[in-house]
């Protein structure tokens, strides 16, 4: 057995979530690295433990949950949805109504998180299933437009339900992440203040990071498990050929409804966590661009795979920060240095209002893209380039690297 790691003698071993030694080792290393990040002990990666990076990594974990949901719908069941942002918004507002302070400015019932977080998912899933019959009747490209309509109708509803959402300009506050048993005054566990867990001093950012990481890992396991159940295989059969799936006894309508329900559940939870994590959100947060961002995550990562979703989310969510840092570095080089590099970079960044540059960090002055706009252009380019050159996404690149080393030194 030791020399032949891919020889399975039992079906369960083949179907295990981590079915090879390499996977087990890598997941173990990755997890311990994640757990150590807040203590700033990883050589070369200690900056990740700083508070702003921890907040960013928490956002990644929350986005992973939403992206896993879209991956189930798009990658497994093959249904195009541009309406993911709408379901995230539904989840966020359900959480806000159930969890917010009853004496607050907007509607709230002051219920604890163990009620509002699952409820956010359940209500979103319910709306997803209720919307399902329309989505089942319409197929393929028409479905993309129907879900596009959902985003715009949702945007209108969110903007006008002022008692719930706070209106287009102001938005509303969301309940903080904290555990209470019921409506008692001091929360059992809170993430807002620094403190000790099991004798280890942690900042509030570190606590939040551990919490969202745990939720994300739970949802990852659920998604990974779904792929090997009857439901997951039925989704893939529908994706590959819906009529063939029906002939094999897969009830198309029922399973498409389930795909929409599960996907919307993930979206609802992700939206609730995101809004709660950010604190104050305006309705325009749940717009078409958020949906496109999730499609970009799934396509860049690799549709249909959990590992791909994680890679894609990290890539897409951290990209703005990397672009920003790179811009600051370039500005720094241009302003201090006098060498060839500074001359070349001077063409890229604009340092003064009269200076020409592709990137212009001074808002509203002269031509040139702001860092935000540059990010958007890079998103667009990445979506296009990945679809043209690497349709399997980052996961596909990993597969090719893996296969290269598998056959080494006889790789050709």
């Amino acid at each position: 057995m030791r020399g032949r790691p891919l020889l399975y003698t039992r079906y369960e071993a083949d179907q295990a979530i981590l079915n090879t030694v390499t996977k087990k080792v890598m997941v173990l290393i990755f997890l311990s690295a994640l757990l150590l990040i807040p203590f700033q002990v990883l050589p070369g990666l200690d900056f990740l433990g700083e508070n702003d990076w921890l907040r960013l990594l928490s956002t990644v974990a929350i986005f992973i949950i939403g992206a896993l949901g879209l991956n189930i719908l798009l990658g497994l069941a093959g249904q195009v949805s541009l309406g993911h942002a709408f379901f995230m918004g539904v989840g966020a507002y359900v959480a806000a109504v159930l969890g917010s302070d009853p004496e607050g400015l907007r509607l709230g019932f002051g219920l604890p998180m163990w009620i509002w977080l699952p409820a956010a998912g359940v209500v979103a899933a319910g709306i997803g299933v209720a919307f399902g019959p329309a989505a089942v009747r319409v197929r393929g490209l028409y479905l993309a437009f129907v879900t596009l309509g959902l985003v715009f109708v949702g945007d209108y509803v969110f903007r006008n339900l002022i008692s719930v959402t706070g209106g287009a300009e102001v938005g509303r506050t969301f309940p903080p992440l904290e555990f209470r048993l019921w409506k008692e005054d001091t929360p059992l566990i809170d993430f807002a203040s620094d403190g000790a867990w099991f004798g280890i001093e942690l900042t509030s950012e570190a606590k939040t990071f551990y919490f969202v990481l745990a939720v994300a890992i739970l949802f990852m396991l659920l998604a990974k498990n779904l792929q090997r159940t009857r439901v997951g295989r039925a989704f893939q059969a529908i994706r590959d050929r819906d009529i063939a799936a029906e002939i094999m006894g897969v009830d198309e309508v029922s399973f498409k409804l389930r795909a929409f329900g599960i996907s919307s559940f993930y979206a609802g939870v992700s939206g609730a966590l995101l809004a709660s994590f950010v604190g104050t959100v305006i309705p325009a947060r749940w717009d078409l661009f958020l949906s496109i961002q999730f499609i970009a995550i799934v396509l860049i990562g690799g549709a249909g795979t959990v590992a791909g979703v994680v890679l894609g989310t990290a890539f897409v969510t951290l990209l703005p920060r990397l672009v920003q840092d790179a811009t600051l570095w370039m500005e720094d080089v241009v302003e201090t240095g006098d060498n060839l590099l500074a001359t070349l970079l001077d063409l890229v960044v604009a340092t003064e209002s009269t200076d020409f540059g592709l990137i212009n960090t001074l808002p509203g002055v002269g031509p040139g893209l702001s860092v935000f706009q540059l990010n958007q252009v890079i998103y667009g380019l990445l979506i296009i380039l990945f679809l043209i050159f690497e349709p399997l996404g980052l996961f596909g690149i990993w597969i090719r690297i893996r296969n290269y080393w598998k056959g080494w030194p006889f790789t050709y």
Partner: protein
Amino acid sequence: MTSGLLILAQESTVVPSEFGRMVVNGISLGAIYAILALGFVIIFKATQVLNFAHGALSAMGAFLIASFATIINVPGRWMEGSPVWLQWVLSVVFALVLAALIGMALERMFLRPMIGEALFAVAIVTLGIDIIVRTITNDFIGQTSRPMGDPFGLKTVGLGCANGGFIGEADLVELCTVRIPWTTVFQMILTIALVAGVAMFFRSRTGIAMRATAWDQEVARAQGISVGRIFATAWAIGAVMAAIGGLFISMFPRRPGGVDTFTAFFAFRAFPAIILGGLDSILGAIVGGFAIGFAESAASTYLTFGFLGTGFGGVVPYIVMLLVLLIRPYGLFGTEEIRRV
């Protein structure tokens, strides 16, 4: 004294017609949606690409027109003394040529490599194009509105005016039953001309080649048709249509200030018109465009109850689209996909 009273009495008989305003507004909206849908459907039919970048292309086209007509004033700066309308028309033609070239370049760079891929994957590529073109266009437009510089301005034709049912350029203080903006007349005429032009184009040699390509790309190639050239032509026509749609959006009744960063989003409302008529139907695009235009206009005129809140007119197209798709999943005139095992 008596004459003054008489005029007052006459004025009170002229009541601005809400219905008339609704119809005029519906025609204007319908022309916008129909032109945008037409360009979209031509691209979809000829190249099997679902073009989500159409809104961005319309904003880009409108900005190009604004650039040529007002910002850099080409060719107007070299032809002082010639009539204003001639300068403007030439500027628009220049801008449309440039828009067509950009459309062809986008097709060649990003969509040619995707031939043979799944329709959905290609549609997502256009979503990427949409982000890029929209962001760069909006960066050029900036925080202000860029006026189109069209010679119509705010002029209107009044029907049933206070000074006797005079048809002519009514100025804005005068009371009329219905006012038709010159821009709406221009939009209507141009829409009819373009629809007729497209109908004639499909009877020309290139048009027949395009129809053959739409029917079956491989068979078309076997007949000696250059499919690549057909794709380029379709994208050129689509980009020109999008630019004209953007021009219509950025004129008097909608956005008198000109093209701004909202224009690309306005064009997203044309998608329901496309779906309503059916993705691959030219007739459907026109019928769908005007139907959605009238529905939106009627909703904004009559459905003004307080509980509906603001911006209800803007979502009416989507609601109509959802309802129609539930009854007819391939739109009113779309080809039903035959599913074979």
